[in-house]
């Protein structure tokens, strides 16, 4: 397993639309996970920037229905902080999976 640092990707902001706005909270979180995983696994064709990943997470945070389930917003906030702090992509992914799992447990 790779453990690439999110902040170490080349910073070409705005190149990729990472959020594709819309969808349920679970869909948006899955989309953010897919983006982070492509960094973690070096699977993507193009390099992603922290800004793009942060945007995808902010898309999740925009939805008010995440407040109905405990901790989802807090996990997403942790994920956003982790991106800002340049934490490894695997760590960001873990926090997003936790948010997705909290949705599953709470639904």
């Amino acid at each position, binding site marked *: *397993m790779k*453990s690439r640092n999110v902040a170490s990707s080349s910073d070409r902001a705005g190149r990729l639309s990472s959020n594709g706005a819309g969808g349920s909270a679970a869909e948006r979180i899955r989309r953010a996970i897919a983006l982070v*995983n492509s960094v*973690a696994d070096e699977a993507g064709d193009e390099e992603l920037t922290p800004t793009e990943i942060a945007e995808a997470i902010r898309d999740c945070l925009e939805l008010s229905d995440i407040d109905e389930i405990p*901790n989802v917003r*807090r*996990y997403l906030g*942790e994920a956003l*902080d*982790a991106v800002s702090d340049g*934490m*490894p992509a*695997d*760590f960001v*992914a*873990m*926090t997003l*999976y*936790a948010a*997705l*799992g*909290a949705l599953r*447990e709470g639904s």
Partner: protein
Amino acid sequence: MPAAHRVLPLPGGARLVAESMPERQSTSMVLMFAGGSRLEDDRLGGVSHFIEHLYFKGTKRRPSSKEIADAIEGVGGFINASTDKELTAYWARVPSEHEDLAFDILFDIVANSRVDEADVEKERMVILDELRMYQDQPQDLVQNLFEELIWPGHPLGRDIAGTEQSVARLTRDDIIEYADAHYRLPNVVVGAAGSLDVPHTADVVARGLALRADPDGALDSSTPDPLSAPRVLIRRRQTAEAHICLGARALSYMDPDRYALDLLNTVLGEGMSSRLFLNIRERLGLAYDVHSFTQKHRDTGYLGVYIGVEPKKAVDAVNAVLGELRALADDEVAEDELTRAKEFTKGRLRLEMETTNGVAFWLTYQQLLFGEIKTIDEELAQVDAVTAADLKRVAIKLVREPLQMSVVGPFARDSAFRLAIGA
């Protein structure tokens, strides 16, 4: 059914528990001493375990470990020992006609070991290696860390083998002094089961067991302080899997609800029909290895869950486990699930009783720790008496305790883990 065992007082305050099983080919014998790593302060951490190792190095009559091994293996027997937190046991299993020999070797080991200075140094190196090996085995490391969290600053929270610092500092005098204080007749129960004649066994033990008779008066250990808050302890290691132990203080083995706790543990995470296995592994595919376990002592205990999981799924798996714990506190388990758990528990206990070794340990353990012995039938009846309401009551108690979590894996920070358990 009347009890098949007999409890006989021995000179000096020792006790013999013996059960004749005439249809068996073997006899097993156990010398079980009250005490263990729980009685050690930080300076003496690991001394009980050190003694147990050293006692196989040679006695006055059998001056080397080879002579001890030859004596028992020469008749096809087994000999071994184990150190626990509240007891230390030396045991052997031999074809029945060699019962006297096996007792003679065990008595020789515990009363006449040479504790040679050179052996102390050699064994110190072996134990230090053992301790370092645990550091390299994440499953062991994470459980040791978990116990540090469950019993912080208390000997119960320390590895039975001690710490590298304490083992490095123990002197031969420390070891001899400690053994002399604890290996005394009032602190030992001798157990025997197999094809034996109880009066003969009693005679062999009474004549052969030569330890000091006066009590040492040093068998007390403080009760751990209550835990006030949830905590997370992370050791960062570049492992491919994350290793997590999660749990809370639970019941002592003196608690009448211990049977309910054991069944709760079975329902939750013992075996492939447990909730953790079926839901976390089979349904969600979150973890390869997920199971629960308990540890019980005189005045405390815990229930823990081990999770071996891909690091990215670590917190998700923790949350899923917490969901299973909460479900046990929210709803009574279904009658058929409880029945399955009871049959699992009773079946395992009966299978343990298949061997003379199993019976000898079962009897000795109870006599030493409880001062009385339940027959298998009495024990099975206690299991059968547990209700779904009992399990729910114990689960509620458990989830109200502050959760503790240890993690070994490639994690740079603990924030998401702390969030999961409210730490």
